[in-house]
């Protein structure tokens, strides 16, 4: 078994692990991590595809590899935005909880 096939199988296993994590983990941060595992698994599959395109003196096909680099950048952007949203949501929850406990003294709050 070559390093390349091994990397492909690792990619497949990572996709599976990530899928399990996205489905099972409750915490949103952990879902983001798991989603990134799926992403890097897919990238490794691209690595396999690139390596299968190794012809006539080339170590690998550059096109899938370049796509992986673009993919890593976009995945990072998406992760950063997701974490930004998550943190803001958390802040709002804390603010709402604080406001609710303030209001509780004078009127009955109806929790949504």
């Amino acid at each position, binding site marked *: 078994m070559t*390093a390349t*096939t091994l*990397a*492909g*199988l*690792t*990619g*497949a*296993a*990572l*996709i*599976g*692990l*990530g*899928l*399990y994590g996205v*489905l*099972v*983990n*409750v*915490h949103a*941060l*952990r879902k983001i*991590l798991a989603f990134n*595992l799926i992403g*890097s698994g897919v*990238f*490794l*599959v691209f*690595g*396999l*595809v*690139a390596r*299968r*395109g190794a*012809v*006539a003196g*080339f170590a*690998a*096909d*550059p*096109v899938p*590899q*370049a796509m*992986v*680099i*673009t993919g*890593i*950048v*976009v995945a*990072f*952007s998406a*992760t*950063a*935005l997701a*974490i*930004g949203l998550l943190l*803001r949501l*958390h802040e709002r929850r*804390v603010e709402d909880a604080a406001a609710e406990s303030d209001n509780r003294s004078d009127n009955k709050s109806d929790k949504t």
Partner: protein
Amino acid sequence: MTVLDLLDTGLAVLVLAVAAWTIVARSNFAAVIGFMTYGLLLSLVWARIAALDVAITEAAIGSGVTGLLLIGAAVRLRALEKSDTAGQVGGLGRVGAAVLSVLVVVALAAVFLSAEGQGPSLAPEAARHLPQFGLGNPITAVLMAYRAIDTMLEKVVLILAVIGVWSLAPDGAWGGAPANLSLAEPDPALVYLARVLPPFGIVVSIYIAWVGASEPGGAFQGGALLAAMALVVLMARLAPAPEVGRLWLRLVIVSGPVTFLAVGLLGFAIATGFLAYPTAYAKALILFIEAFMVLSIAAMLPLLVLGPPKVPGGRA
């Protein structure tokens, strides 16, 4: 089985073990540290399958900016972690998810194992036109010439992410500065590192970006390293986080894609069309674009880590 096979197998097992740990770890913090380790191991795997460009990207971003982003989030969400057990997936759900995941893995593995031998390849095609651009690294040629529009739009995606993160600011803080990365007074040793490391870091970033024309490396990798250096300075509080309303900051951010677009449009006049380069100046133009891309990447990645503005600015 040779030594190299053993090394590869060991690496694969390690990657999977650490990945599994980030799924099952009890605390978010432990999971995040696992994820940083995972990025590092992954870059070793990329180095082993002849994808050094990707290995450098993964090393620069995986062990740098991503880790800081995730650690910051894990710390701020710590309170949430303990209370939030509602909606826990039950035993049956877990078994179902596990079965589904195993099925996916088996199906994918079967496909990969059945696809033996040569696949379709664009490598000769990519290499044939290399001299035309004066480049030696086919990946840079793919990124900057053959599929230049992808790379340009990728930078636009980064800008959109920055705008998205900024737009999460509370109303009063718009145009102000993001919160500090460190909560307390920084350690003197860290301040020392933040003074000594960045000069070396700047040299290495420029080298990686420059060498990308002929060897593995490139603009994004160089920019990500530069971004990490900026974050070291910010962590040591040698410089304050910039106010997001500043004009210079916004100009730096858009400089990369705008230069790319301008040169692309210039292609109508001096070459055969949009994003085409005249053969005589191809390498010079590509490096010109890359220089601005390094700058805007080095500005955008730290901004994504810093998060939305929190402190009201002077001239919002």
